[in-house]
């Protein structure tokens, strides 16, 4: 029996063509924003915590959209973690909406904060690029003892750092380069994102456009990998998902378990610093603590990017402070001062924020309710106006 003719050469040609077309599609789509409607923030289903590996370019493109939308207005990027993201508030009542209302035409506000982000990540990298282009851009980011500990470029946004770096979006800064090589040793979240793998990934994305194309595909056309947040809906495109965070009620003072857990967090971070000021030589842990603290700030932000940047050291729920004894309260206040001092010493504009908020303004240890968000927006709007006046 004669074997039927085989069209393998056509197939092979097609394969090469298909791969090249995909690469071209990736290149074409790079720099285009995700087709988001009514953008408020990159919610759970369109950020890495929901298994959606938002690319640096997509985040940058979102900022550029706003710049194009509101020409001539200074862009105010909200960076930082879940506190500034607005965890505790739904998308509809997100505090950044109120901030924009309060600021009116003074600034164009964009929320690029993400839960789990360190002080100088994500929104900060967008800020750095736009600043280097000479854009009128400011960054407002939040810091708390738990978030400063990690250098930039650790989970969950480690991939974004290498992506931005590979594409030459970041300012050259040797200290940041060497520091990121040490990050695995210091990381709080033990991850397997080896620097070499992440660098390779960033290169593949740069030259083949794989992330750019397939994240857009996952957003618009079809989901393609099971994730715990989407479960059996994982095959659906992410554009069908809404921001899942709802307005949460204020924290219940009677929730003893959570109260104890939160208070232990406070005590843990105090432990590293207090002995330093008790007239003894600092222990190895304390020295390590200070090295990390200073490393996470200086080694993340080149000196020429510090001018338009404001770090807000946000206050935690006073209910948790009340649980401490007098000595611990004093130590906590002292540490807060040290935190502010550390940032100021590095040349960052540093503000202490939410000091006047009451327990009703919080939904847990550090996240704000809708009322808390509004209060924070009002305070920040006032301070930003003063800041602007001083600059002019």
């Amino acid at each position, binding site marked *: 029996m004669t074997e039927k003719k*085989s069209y*393998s*050469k056509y*197939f092979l040609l097609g*394969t090469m063509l298909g791969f090249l077309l995909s690469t071209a599609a990736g290149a074409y789509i790079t720099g285009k924003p995700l087709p988001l409607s009514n953008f408020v923030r990159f919610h759970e289903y369109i950020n890495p915590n929901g298994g959606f590996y938002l690319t640096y370019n997509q985040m940058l493109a979102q900022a550029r959209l706003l710049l194009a939308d509101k020409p001539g207005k200074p862009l105010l990027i909200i960076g930082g973690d879940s506190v500034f993201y607005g965890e505790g508030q739904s998308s509809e009542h997100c505090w950044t909406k109120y901030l924009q209302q309060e600021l009116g035409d003074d600034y164009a506000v964009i929320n690029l904060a993400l839960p789990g982000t360190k002080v100088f990540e994500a929104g900060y990298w967008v800020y750095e690029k736009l600043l280097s282009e000479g854009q009128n851009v400011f960054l407002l980011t939040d810091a708390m003892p738990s978030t400063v500990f990690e250098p930039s470029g650790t989970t969950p946004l480690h991939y974004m750092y290498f992506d931005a770096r590979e594409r030459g979006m970041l300012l050259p800064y040797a200290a940041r380069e060497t520091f990121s090589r040490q990050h695995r040793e210091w990381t709080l979240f033990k991850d397997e994102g080896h620097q070499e793998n992440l660098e390779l990934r960033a290169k593949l994305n740069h030259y083949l456009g794989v992330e750019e194309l397939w994240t857009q595909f996952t957003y618009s056309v079809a989901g393609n*990998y*099971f994730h715990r947040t989407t479960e059996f809906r*994982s095959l659906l495109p992410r554009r069908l998902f809404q921001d899942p965070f709802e307005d949460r009620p204020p924290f219940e003072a009677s929730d003893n378990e959570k109260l104890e857990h939160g208070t232990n967090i406070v005590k843990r971070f105090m432990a590293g610093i207090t002995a330093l000021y008790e007239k003894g030589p600092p222990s190895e842990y304390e020295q390590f603590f200070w090295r990390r603290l200073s490393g996470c700030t200086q080694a993340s932000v080149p000196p020429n990017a510090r001018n338009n940047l404001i770090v807000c050291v946000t206050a935690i729920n006073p209910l948790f402070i009340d649980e401490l004894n007098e000595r611990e309260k004093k130590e906590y206040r002292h540490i807060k001062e040290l935190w502010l001092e550390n940032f100021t010493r590095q040349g960052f504009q540093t503000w202490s924020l939410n000091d006047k908020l009451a327990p009703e303004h919080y939904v847990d240890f550090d996240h704000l309710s809708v009322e808390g968000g509004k209060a924070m927006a009002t305070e920040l709007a006032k301070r930003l106006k003063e800041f602007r006046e001083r600059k002019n």
Partner: protein
Amino acid sequence: MVKLRLWALLIFCAVFHSHFAGAAGVAPIAVLALLTYVTALTASKFKKGGGWLCLSTIIIVTAALLTYKYSRFLLLDVLASVNKPLAEHFAASLFAALPATPPLAISFFAFEFIHYLYEVRRGREPIKKPQDFLAFAIFFPSLVAGPIKRYQDFIPSLYQGLSAVSSRDVAAGMVRLAAGFFKKLMIADNINQYILEKQAFYFAVDLPERWLFLLALAGRIYYDFSGYTDIALGLAMMMGIKLPPNFNGPYGATSIRDFWQRWHMSLSFWIRDYIYIPLGGSQHGLARRILSGILAFALCGLWHGASWNFLFWGLYHGLGLAINTVYRKLPWLSPLWKLYDKYPLTARLTTFLFVVFGWLPFFYPLDKAWSMFLMLFQFKGVSGD
């Protein structure tokens, strides 16, 4: 041209092996490979003592496998249950010398070397050229997870591929490669995510979800492993080289015997040829046949992992095979075989259930696997573990 291609392949294989295995993983394999190669050549020259020479090297290879992979199990689990101080004494000195993890794919290497030596001992021609043997030993597509090759098929196929590769081979290989990636990435990895998410809640959920979880376990291992095999076969085919298949619709098997002719075929045939048949196979009566089968499967189970639950899984399949061998000889079971003959689907279902239940001890420690099995017949979930 053939020579050039062979050396290019060998260099790539060496780089591949050393990258994934590290120096500590390459050295023992290199020593065993050299020993195997030299033994086979020497043995084929000296017909009289050659058989003993091959056997000695087989013992050395087996000993190396046992030391690297099974010493912890043999000392801390087996010996410790009878004589703890003695076990701990040996363990202390041995573990200091051993690397933290066994050399990459040592089980596959050992089985291929043992196969080679056994065949040479039987009188087959050994591989003369060292570069051919090296290609057989560290051929990169099958290096990490098989299939387990037979040198008498591999070497001719290697030379066929090195001399000419048709576009048909490249295209067919690419299709296979894509099928492998599809099975691994789109199916197995997603099922794996589901399993990782749901296993903590297994005891708490309701019955249908537990059965879904069980099916997920069965699906994951099949798609993961057959995906890997397709990737290996596809890559080899793109070079014009044929590797033995590993899977043939195993979950459609009509009996346990049939299952093992469709699941991880290269391993199953190895066990048959180098353990079951040397033990006597089916040539020495029913009792010995059953015993050989059980022993062969016990070793098959242990090959997968050095712990009690793998041994149990092997014995479980050995028992299944034993039942398969005798059940048609028992007249009181005649309604069953009549059912199977009339409705082959029932035979397939029984086999499938048997295999699927077997995945519980394969993936979980025995006590947990047993609890999980019992919960498959309880409607409501329980709170806590």
